[in-house]
Structure formats: C-alpha cells, structure tokens
C-alpha cells in the first residue's frame, strides 16, 4: 500500500506525479518503518523534509566527526613528539 494517503483531491501534472512517486518510492524502499505518535502534529511536509535533510546532514556530521578525530589524533601525536623531543634534550 502506498504510504502517502491523499485526504484531499489535488490537481497534479502527470510529470509531477511520476517524479513524486519515484522520489517517495526510492525513499520508502530505503527506509525501514518506525512508529511515530505524538501529541503535537509533526506536519507531513516537515516530516518528509526532515527525513531527506537528516540523511545528508547525518553524512556531513559523520565527516565532521571523522575530521575532528583525525585532527585530535594528529594534534595529540605531534604534541607527544614535541614533548618527547623536549624531554630528550
């Protein structure tokens, strides 16, 4: 069953309809389901945007964390070498 239900008929061009179905189909095929019930309405448009956006932002965040760790590791390494060189002197 299609995960998106129309509650109000809306005119949509054939091209728009196909592209929407492709995007959503791709998304839904990739994304496992999880329950979401809340006392506030998350809003359908907000919900869909968040899913798309978070995917990219998550990847960027992973890169950021990786780079932070590399910098921290290198910083630690150089400071140790520097300390060792100072101690050797």
């Amino acid at each position, binding site marked *: 069953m299609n995960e998106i239900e129309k509650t109000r008929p809306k005119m949509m061009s054939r091209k728009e309809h196909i592209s929407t179905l492709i995007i959503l189909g791709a998304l839904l095929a990739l994304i496992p389901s999880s329950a*979401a019930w809340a006392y*506030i309405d998350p809003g359908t448009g907000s919900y869909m945007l968040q899913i798309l956006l*978070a995917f990219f932002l998550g990847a960027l965040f992973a890169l950021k964390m990786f780079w932070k760790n590399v910098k921290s590791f290198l910083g630690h390494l150089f400071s140790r070498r520097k300390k060792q060189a100072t101690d050797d002197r």
Partner: protein
Amino acid sequence: MTGERRVPGSFRDPSGFLFYREEALYRQINRCYQDNYDLLNTCGLYAELVNAGLLIPHREVDIFPADPASAYRVIAPEPVRFISYPYEWCFSQLRDAALTTLRIQQIALDHGMSLKDASAYNIQFHRARPVLIDTLSFEKYAEGRPWIGYQQFCRHFLAPLALMSRTDVRLGGLLRNHLDGIPLDLAARLLPARTKLSFPLLTHIHLHAKSQKKYEGRTVKPAAGKVSRLAMRGLIDNLNHAIKALRWEAEGTEWAEYYEDTNYTPEGFRHKQRLVAEFIAASSPQTVWDLGGNIGIFSRIAAENHIFTVCFDVDPAAVEKNYRQCRTQQRDNLLPLLCDLTNPSPGAGWNTSERAGLIERGPADTVLALALIHHLAISHNVPLAGIAEFLARLGRWVIIEFVPKDDSQVRRLLATREDIFGDYTQDIFEQVFSRTYEIIRSEMIRESKRTLYLLHAKKSGET
C-alpha cells in the same frame, strides 16, 4: 489566592498538568507518562540537565493528586519568579532559549531520550538563565524516528530569529499573533531573497515551507520514514549552526542611546539614583517592576539590593543591551523584557488565558515609573487619571518622577505638536494621584525641574 486551580496554559500534553494548591505550584504526572518519567530519572538525564542548569529542578511530593484517576506522581517544581513569553524577549533571549533547547536535545539523545516538543513557551528565564520548565517534554528515543519537535523548533525559534536578524528586529512581535510560532511560508515571504544563499535558511525555512505546501492536505503514516541517530545528530548540529549564525547588534535606536542624551547634570543624576534607592528601601519590596526602564540603570539599584526586578522597555535595542549586560554580570535577579506600556501583553491563546496578560502576572510590590509620565501623557495622550489607575493595578507602591512642561524633554515632545495638555501640571498631577495614592515622600531632583514621589495606594474606600 486559596484552594486549587489548574494552570490555564497546561492542557495540551496528556502526560500531565500543572496546578496550584494553596499558592504552591505542583505538576501531576499521569500514568500514561510513567515509563518516560521513570526513564528520565534512571537514565541520568534529569540529574545531568539539572546539574547543568538546563532543566528546572523538582522534588516529588506526597500530596493528594489533583486528578487521582490518572495520577502517577506529583512533583513540586522550583518556582520561576516571573513567567515571560517569547514575544516579550529580545533577540538574544530568544537565541539563547533556542540554543538551550538544542543542547537539551543533544544531551537527551546521549541518554536515549528525545524532546517530544520544542516549544519556546517551555523555556523560562530562571536565575538569569534559560531553562526548560516542562519536565514532561522527554520521551524514550525510538531508533529511526524523526524528531517530532522539528517543525515546532523552526516555527518557534529559527523563523523569528531569522526575521529579526535578516529583516527587522521588530518582526519578533509576530510571535504575539502566532502563538504556535511563525508560519514558515510567512517567514519565507518576509525574508530577503539572499537568505536562500544560506544553506540552513534555504533548507529549514524556504524548502521547509515549500515541502509543507507540497504535502498540504495529505497525511503521512507513522511508518513513512526513518532518521538514524547519526542523521538526527547531524540535523541538531546544523540547526545549532543556523541559530549561532544569526546575529543582531543593538545600536542606533533613540532609547538605547538614551542615557547619552539626558538633561541631568552629573550631580542631578547621582541625586536621583540616591533618592530612588531610598524610596525603594522605604517600600521594602520583594519584587520591583521598572516600567520604561531602558537599559536597567535604576533596575540595578533594586537588583543589587537582592530584590527580584523586571525591567520593561519598548525598545528592542535597550532590552538587548540590558540582557547582555545581565548575562555578562551573571545578574540572576534582573529580568529585562520588551513591553509597550500603551499596549502591554494581553491574555492570549485558548480562552484568552493560555498565556497570561501583563497585569495578571502582577502585582509587583513596588513599581518604578521614572521619566515615563510625560511619554504616556503627552506622546500618547493618556490622561493622568488613566495613568494613576493603570499603575495602581501593577503595584501598591509607586516611585514616580514628575517631569514638568518646562523640562527640555517635554519641550521637545511639544515642539512639533499643539499643546492640548492644559491639565499636565504638577498641581493637577498631585490632585489626581492623591485620589488613589497617599504621597509618602516627594523630593525635587537637584539641578533639574523634576520631582520624585513615593506613593502608596490607599485602601479601597479611603480618599
């Protein structure tokens, strides 16, 4: 006030509600929230947030619940001295509240929980810091579930801050009309086109508004999508950057530069400060409201004497300067707020009681009305009797400065308009205010034409 009553704004979330009993504030936690409340305590999130000053502390109390049929626990949260609303905050107050919300969400995720809402009304300024006051805002984090508060965060925080920063700071006032935050399509229309070049504003506001329009009238089933924990962290991190990138500098307005353009001599100004200190001490208040308090110079006289003080001003730049100074000085008993005294915050929201009006949040013990009366009487045509009546609703003690017509500031106000203010004299001021108040002290301020009065409201029936 005696007996018991529910807090009018506490009804949306079925997890519990706030109520007053014999003047003390309690929060009932309902059984449907039991698992999340227990998790909040056992996972260490409550302790970490309270220790970091991010969540209001509470103690569990053994009292009869307000609604025993649904009750799990009753807690007594630490009282907040003055409840303020986002439409009364300056730019930095709203920005700090936004960053606090995101920091709480980051810490909650570390403990396997998540904020289930992101309402700006859940944040209050307590001991000079923004804190979350809704203990029931947390739920167990379900792996893959998107952040339910995302839309609310964008409407309550990001959209108004973007508008204040990139369009006009006065647009923060839209929050008074839109209690559930500024609609994103409206924000997108009001923001300059160049904000589309900013990735966070492009996505979280412009594309967000378009996405809302695209899916308008459709529902998404709970199974529609997944946001991994990493993706959620990426989203929160990006929102954090978006908020931090928004800035506004408080400069150049008439009022923010007010003290650089007064007609007091240094001796006159020192004398006024001394008199205000004496009059405040004579009224021995626990709370002071400083009306038209500008950047809070006279508010600080009260605050430095350990009196909780709220400083109201109409100018966003003056409130901003005051707030930043309070933050730097860690002044924990002075709260600067925006308020147009000719149009103070009314009761708003459901049944006009969800958000209390200014007067309902009083009275204060002592009200300061310094260099204010001429603006109300002459700039805004408010009759002296109307001013006396208004002040009497705000506090029993009033410290008021009468500024006569031959004062240079009043002459400036009258320079471009007809003088229709025949009743604006010191004699008539005293006659009118004597109907409501007893004049306890009055002193001319040295090297000025102004007089400072200490007034105490008469008991009703006493004339």
